[in-house]
């Protein structure tokens, strides 16, 4: 038993570090450190840098422009990205819809959609959840009724991230009302410019309209945009949901955040003549978070080691989702604690994309509560942590 990388892997790690050092624009890094949002243009620019390097889609098969990396190389890459705060490509196209198109799309659909996803020419968003279908996703009601060469789509989707930037949306729609709820769902690709689509931004607790509600009113979608067979969409979506769960442990990001919390603690008075870094209560919280991160990292490595010998990722990945998100949320609490009074100003505008003014508040403390609020989503999305516990109790414990 050992947790060492091979010499080849270590050389690869150096290559990735050097690439990020030289190619990840320092302006973006600065913004991310200040918790400011990148603009669409900046995100696309970074993804195109990755594309030109050939590293934008590590999880794609080589024939479609993937990297052909081993699981360990993929792990190293995403670890190094996380350690410098470089954003992973926006997942909706690259890691969510693309694998479904590859697995179930026609040759023509592959040719039509995949290259533009790879090159970040086309921006995708997700149409899954509905106002009345959250964790019980299969109860969705947005309907698609066949009319000649088209489907006519009516209904609404919610929690749609980046819809305002998107050119296309992939949707789960109901095509049969008369069967078991999972068996009447289809997987449809819809052009966001289609007449009848409207977007309503939803402002979240952090004051940012991060998500939208998308309304479909008699939207006509060519049948060519159906993926696979009609009424088989649920099967395809489940494949996609497993993809959504990989990388969710967030260990490198956690390490980076923990380092920043430690530095911040050393600069924050505890009110009793010392700093928060020496404060016994806070010190203990930091140590516990660090220990949890180690346990999480080695759980991820154990999963990775199983992958490298050809085992499929099991429902154990639910552990990574639950523990990773709960740990991240505990760090958010520490962030608020360190900020103290500094977290009270509600100034979401200074974190909006394109903000050029000076950030108010010492040490960017005005972002602390906003981060805390925003990250409550972590245990809700991607299959809520309760759904993950259902998966563990059914698939692992056999209950």
């Amino acid at each position, binding site marked *: *038993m*050992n*947790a*060492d*990388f091979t010499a080849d892997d270590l050389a690869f790690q150096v290559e990735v570090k050097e690439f990020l050092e030289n190619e990840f624009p320092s302006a973006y890094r600065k913004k991310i450190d200040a918790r400011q949002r990148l603009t669409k243009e900046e995100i696309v620019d970074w993804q195109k840098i990755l594309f030109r390097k050939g590293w934008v889609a590590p999880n794609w098969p080589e024939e479609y422009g993937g990297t052909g990396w081993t699981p*360990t190389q993929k792990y190293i890459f995403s670890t190094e990205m996380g350690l410098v705060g470089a954003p992973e490509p926006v997942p909706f196209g690259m890691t969510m819809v693309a694998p479904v198109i590859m697995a179930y799309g026609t040759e023509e659909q592959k040719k039509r959609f995949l290259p533009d996803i790879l090159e970040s020419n086309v921006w995708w968003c997700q149409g899954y959840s509905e106002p009345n279908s959250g964790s019980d996703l299969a109860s969705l009601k947005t309907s698609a009724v066949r009319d000649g060469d088209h489907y006519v789509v009516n209904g609404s989707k919610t929690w749609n991230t980046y819809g305002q930037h998107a050119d296309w949306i992939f949707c789960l729609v109901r095509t049969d009302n008369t069967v078991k709820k999972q068996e009447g769902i289809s997987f449809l690709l819809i052009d966001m410019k289609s007449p009848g689509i409207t977007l309503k931004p939803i402002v979240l607790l952090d004051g940012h309209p991060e998500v939208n509600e998308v309304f479909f009113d008699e939207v006509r979608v060519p049948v060519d945009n159906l993926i696979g067979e009609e009424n088989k969409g649920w099967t395809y979506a489940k494949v996609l949901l497993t993809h959504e769960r990989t990388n969710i442990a967030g260990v490198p990001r956690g390490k980076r955040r923990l380092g920043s919390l430690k530095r911040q603690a050393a600069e924050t008075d505890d009110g009793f003549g010392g700093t928060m870094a020496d404060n016994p209560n806070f*010190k*203990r919280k*930091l*140590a*516990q978070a*660090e*220990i*949890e991160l*180690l*346990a*999480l*990292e*080695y*759980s991820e*490595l*154990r999963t*990775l*080691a*199983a992958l*490298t*010998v050809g085992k499929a990722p099991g429902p*154990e990945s639910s*552990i990574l989702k*639950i*523990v990773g998100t709960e740990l991240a949320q505990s760090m958010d609490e520490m962030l608020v604690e360190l900020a103290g009074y500094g977290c009270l100003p509600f100034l979401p505008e200074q974190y909006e994309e394109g903000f050029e003014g000076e950030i108010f508040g010492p040490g960017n403390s005005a972002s602390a509560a906003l981060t805390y609020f925003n990250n409550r989503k972590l245990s809700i999305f991607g299959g809520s942590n*309760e759904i*993950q*516990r*259902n998966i*563990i*109790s059914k698939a*692992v*414990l*056999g*209950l």
Partner: protein
Amino acid sequence: MDFSQTEEQQMLQESVQQFVRKSYDFDTRNSIVATAEGYSAEFWKLFAELGWLTVPFSEADGGFGDSAVDLTVMMDEFGKALVVEPYLATVVLGGGIIAALADEKTKGELLPQIMSGDLQLSLASAEHGGRYNPLNVATTAKAEGDSIVLDGVKTAVLNGSNASYIIVTARESGDVSASDGISVFLVPTDSAGVSIQGFTTIDGRSSSEVKLEAVSVDASARLGLPGKAAEALVLVNEKATLACAAEALGALESMLHKTVEYSKTRKQFGTSIGTFQALQHRMADMFIQCQLARSIVIRAAMKIDSSESTVEKAKAVSAAKSRIGYAIKAVGQEAIQIHGGIAMTEELDVGHLFRRVTALDIMFGDADYHTERYASL
């Protein structure tokens, strides 16, 4: 990177599993606990024949290779079966100190006896005032001519009543918490001035409190250089701490398994209680705790076997003992709760596993102690 077991580790694991299946059921274990010695001499000889007593010794010392990963593989299985034989006291602690500090002559004499199952040992390190720090030593060692005179009280002396020698940590110089000035002495248990009060622990092990009143030993009873035992003591302590963490891990997984199986068969309100989501999620949480605990114990074992610094090793062990301490509370208490009243009885093994992990949490430092130690290193 490779987290799979070597062939040797697999064989070791299977050999313990096979022994437990064939010879160490719950009733047998309880009847051993009820004996005066609190362990089975017959099984101890068998452990020796199976080679288990050689595991934490280097090949140079005639052992199996002194791999921490090997040790955790074995302790894990011991934990599942609630094994009470004094492996930790005689082999890991006693043997560990002798291997680290004794001269070749003493090693040549004692180590083979340990590995053949002919010698029982005990380490008298902990004191009432020292909490879990092995370097907090108030027991004194004063030179008088060619002799050394020992005075002090030692607690949590595992296997003291069965041991031929008690290995005593004592201070020759320095403050009570100074790392310099600590020596260890090999004291025959029948020496004048040694009184051993034996008792059974909450988890069915034989332990004792040892009083040393003007115990005179020859200077040759000192293992290693005068006042220089701290480093070896700490390293042996790390290994013993890890061994306890690994044993607790096995016990916790056993509790999880038993709880899940029980919930599938126990019927209330016309259905098995395992169908209730309120319980399913709690068992899922128990599973998560076990997995995290396993990850961090494996990590600590790998670090001990690596060439990293003593500080890194200490941090890895403290991280593991801290994390498993929290898992012990979470998994242990839930196992009792989900079983309900039946787990409160002595009839069921779950309650005994709960007692065992409660003791293992305390031994060599609980979760809070090791969190503090981790943060201070």
